[in-house]
């Protein structure tokens, strides 16, 4: 445990050192992949260090400050246990544990919304405490995602669950929807926590620890609406110019992303459809068993056989219900997350292309001496650095993402296969025991007939 504390302190001490890119609003790039790397902070967060008083955080509930907090390797929920196993690139240095639970409805005169409780347990030094509990609503998550994308435009930020699902929504806040969203939000935060760079993002830290009013005031301090709009306009403009010199590896990456997106969307649809068909099958099966009971009422000699058949059917029915819930817990959320990831990836590619487009246009301007070219070489130099960092960041993160994707998909489908095997095994056992009992009965009867 001591070793872990040292490791996290080493990381936190590495934080201020890399201020080289402080003037560029979006540019922060860690060295690829290694866990001991230094992470660079955004300009906004550096500004906030002056307001340390505001950031004094305290646990909402003092009773959480118990002995448990000194053992960061104890995950607080089964789900985070699973997350720990899944993220194979962070096996032994996990020092940030997050759970999302307890959705609560809040009604104001203007609107109704849901907040989720977020509990964070950590052993990191840069956190003022080892446990935090806050409440956040979906808007807050959106804000966090936006900040992360801003700070790391070419990193693969985990996807958020959709704002709303148009198809099949009866009311905005039905229980299934809330539960699905809660799980997805939990996944979202844990994925960030496990990302070697994003985990040290200051906005992330504030999100996990700040009280509601602190968060609101922090939010207001971001780049103004106008500057953000300006960025968007520039982005659109540059993307319309098109990317002529996308390097080969990024061409490949782009092709992969396009195809992957197609396929994962199809798989999502197929999986949803399977769930629907299984549900309808279950609904019909529920009616099937009882008819045999009804029949047994008018057949004296077949009563037992019919009743046994009915109970077999009912047991198979329960097994199919279990199979369905397995599908919806293991496969559907994973596939859906990767659908959202594929959209995310396309966004990342675009942002990378934008940086490239900006660079290319400046180079073009220099070549053809269109405008005042005095400052251009310096600007181009900076942009080239920026491009290189962005490309490297993406490449590294891409490898990491692919690895994760393969593991996740493999696990999800293996689970689905396992569920199906289990289902068929249960049904098999049920019918086999019925058959045995019938044969035994027959043997009994024939032996009774013998003199």
């Amino acid at each position, binding site marked *: 445990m001591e070793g872990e504390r040292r490791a996290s302190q080493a990381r936190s001490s590495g934080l201020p050192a890399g201020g080289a890119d402080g003037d560029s609003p979006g540019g922060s790039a860690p060295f690829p992949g290694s866990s001991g790397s230094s992470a660079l902070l955004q300009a906004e967060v550096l500004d906030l260090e002056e307001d340390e008083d505001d950031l004094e955080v305290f646990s909402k509930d003092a009773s959480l400050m118990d002995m448990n907090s000194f053992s960061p390797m104890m995950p607080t929920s089964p789900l985070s246990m699973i997350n720990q196993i899944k993220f194979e690139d962070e096996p032994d240095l996990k020092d940030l544990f997050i759970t999302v639970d307890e959705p609560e409805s809040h009604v104001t005169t203007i609107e109704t919304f849901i907040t989720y409780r977020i509990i964070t347990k950590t052993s990191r030094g840069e956190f003022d405490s080892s446990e935090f509990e806050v409440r956040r609503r979906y808007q807050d998550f959106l804000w966090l995602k936006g900040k992360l994308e801003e700070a790391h435009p070419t990193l693969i930020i985990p996807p958020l669950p959709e704002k709303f699902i148009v198809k099949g929504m009866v009311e905005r806040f039905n229980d299934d929807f809330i539960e699905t969203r809660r799980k997805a939000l939990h996944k979202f935060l844990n994925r960030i926590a496990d990302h070697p760079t994003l985990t040290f993002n200051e906005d992330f830290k504030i999100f996990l620890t700040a009280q509601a009013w602190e968060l609101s005031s922090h939010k207001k301090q971001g780049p103004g609406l106008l500057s953000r709009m300006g960025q968007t306009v520039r982005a659109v403009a540059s993307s319309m110019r098109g990317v002529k010199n996308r390097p080969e590896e990024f061409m490949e990456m782009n*092709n*992969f992303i396009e*195809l*992957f997106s197609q*396929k994962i969307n*199809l*798989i999502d649809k*197929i999986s949803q*459809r*399977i769930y629907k*068909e*299984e549900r*309808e*099958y279950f*609904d*019909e*099966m529920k*009616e*099937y068993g009882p*008819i*045999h009971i*009804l*029949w047994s009422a*008018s*057949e004296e*000699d*077949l009563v037992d*056989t*019919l009743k046994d*058949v009915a109970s*077999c059917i009912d047991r*198979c029915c329960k097994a199919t219900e279990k199979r369905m819930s397995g599908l919806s817990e293991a496969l559907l959320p994973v596939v859906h997350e990767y659908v959202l990831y594929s959209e995310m990836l396309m966004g990342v590619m675009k942002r990378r292309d934008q940086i490239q487009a900006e660079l290319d246009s400046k180079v073009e301007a220099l070549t053809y001496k269109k405008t005042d070219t005095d400052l251009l070489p310096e600007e181009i130099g900076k942009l080239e650095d920026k491009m290189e960092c962005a490309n490297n960041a993406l490449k590294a993160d891409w490898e990491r993402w692919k690895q994760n994707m*393969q593991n996740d*998909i*493999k696990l999800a*489908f*293996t689970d689905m*296969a*396992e569920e*199906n*095997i289990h*289902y*068929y*095994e249960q*049904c*098999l056992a049920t*019918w*086999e025991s*019925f*058959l045995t009992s*019938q044969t035994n009965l027959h043997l009994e009867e024939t032996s009774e007939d013998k003199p």
Partner: protein
Amino acid sequence: MEQAPPDPERQLQPAPLEPLGCPDAGLGAAVGKEAAGAGEEDSGVDTMTHNNFWLKKIEISVSEAEKRTGRNAMNMQETYTAYLIETRSVEHTDGQSVLTDSLWRRYSEFELLRNYLLVYYPHIVVPPLPEKRAEFVWHKLSADNMDPDFVERRRIGLENFLLRIASHPILCRDKIFYLFLTQEGNWKETVNETGFQLKADSRLKALNATFRVKNPDKRFTDLKHYSDELQSVISHLLRVRARVADRLYGVYKVHGNYGRVFSEWSAIEKEMGDGLQSAGHHMDVYASSIDDILEDEEHYADQLKEYLFYAEALRAVCRKHELMQYDLEMAAQDLASKKQQCEELATGTVRTFSLKGMTTKLFGQETPEQREARIKVLEEQINEGEQQLKSKNLEGREFVKNAWADIERFKEQKNRDLKEALISYAVMQISMCKKGIQVWTNAKECFSKM
């Protein structure tokens, strides 16, 4: 057929429609004995040999079905299916079978045979035919009569029908049935010549009897209720089963889509590619396995359907009893009223209303001679009536006895068959589960290798 039936005259006629407990003692005895058991006992009647001949020495199969076109009664072109019926006689000694007869029949001829049997054996629960049109269809299954799967299932159903008749102790001895299997041409004419259609009870008469009969045998009333329940519950079961089959089909088939997508996806994946591709193949196998599974289940549904239709056969026997009982009650009532009339005429009191009494009042009393004449006529009628009542009574009792014997036989058969069907359903489920385990185990292996 090498052996000529011992009593050609008697064999040529179907079982007579007159009271069964009647003059033809030999036939009656044979009927009684056969109805009681599997026909193994020796009643000493020649027909028993004939019976054994039917039960033990022949095999009947409906071996083929063929589409034909021809002209129907209105000289219009029509397409129909003809079925090949083959009869083999099994040699005693070596068990080899020799084809003795083979002819083609269409569904309508089977119907004709059955209608004939219904008229001439009203005390027997006559085996039903397979359905004329496909019902309880789940939507992927065709409802078209020309569909090869439907034709195949019907072929099996028709064979089953013939085998049921051949193994029935009484029906198997029927000449028309024998001719159905052996005489291709002219059979329809022969059946019609028996005039059975004329002898059939009118539906209206039967309906009338059902409502008006006062003292039917309680066992038949109970049997009627049972057959109603049986029909209702089996219909319900078949309907739900069809829906379940539909849904199951959906679940399996959607998995087939995985196969295609995995295969396309594997093209862009270096490490995962092989695993995805082979897993996709297993998804295809899974999806296509449902076709055979549901085809088998259709046979199970057919077994249940047979008993659904048997319910109607049971009701037919009940209806016949009600008709006979009603007839008896009417005859008794008529006799009673005639007796009373006679008595009144003899004693001179008029208690009952009669036209004669009315006219007497209006036009004056009749002469003693006239009255005597009338009494005489009535007495004759009463005599005749008493004879008829006696024979109707006998007929009725014989009917009940024989019918109930066949119903007991039917009950045993039904219990055996339904139990067997339910067990075969379990066997089918087991087979389906085993296939499922295999496919998914293979798929899981592929996934884990990705």
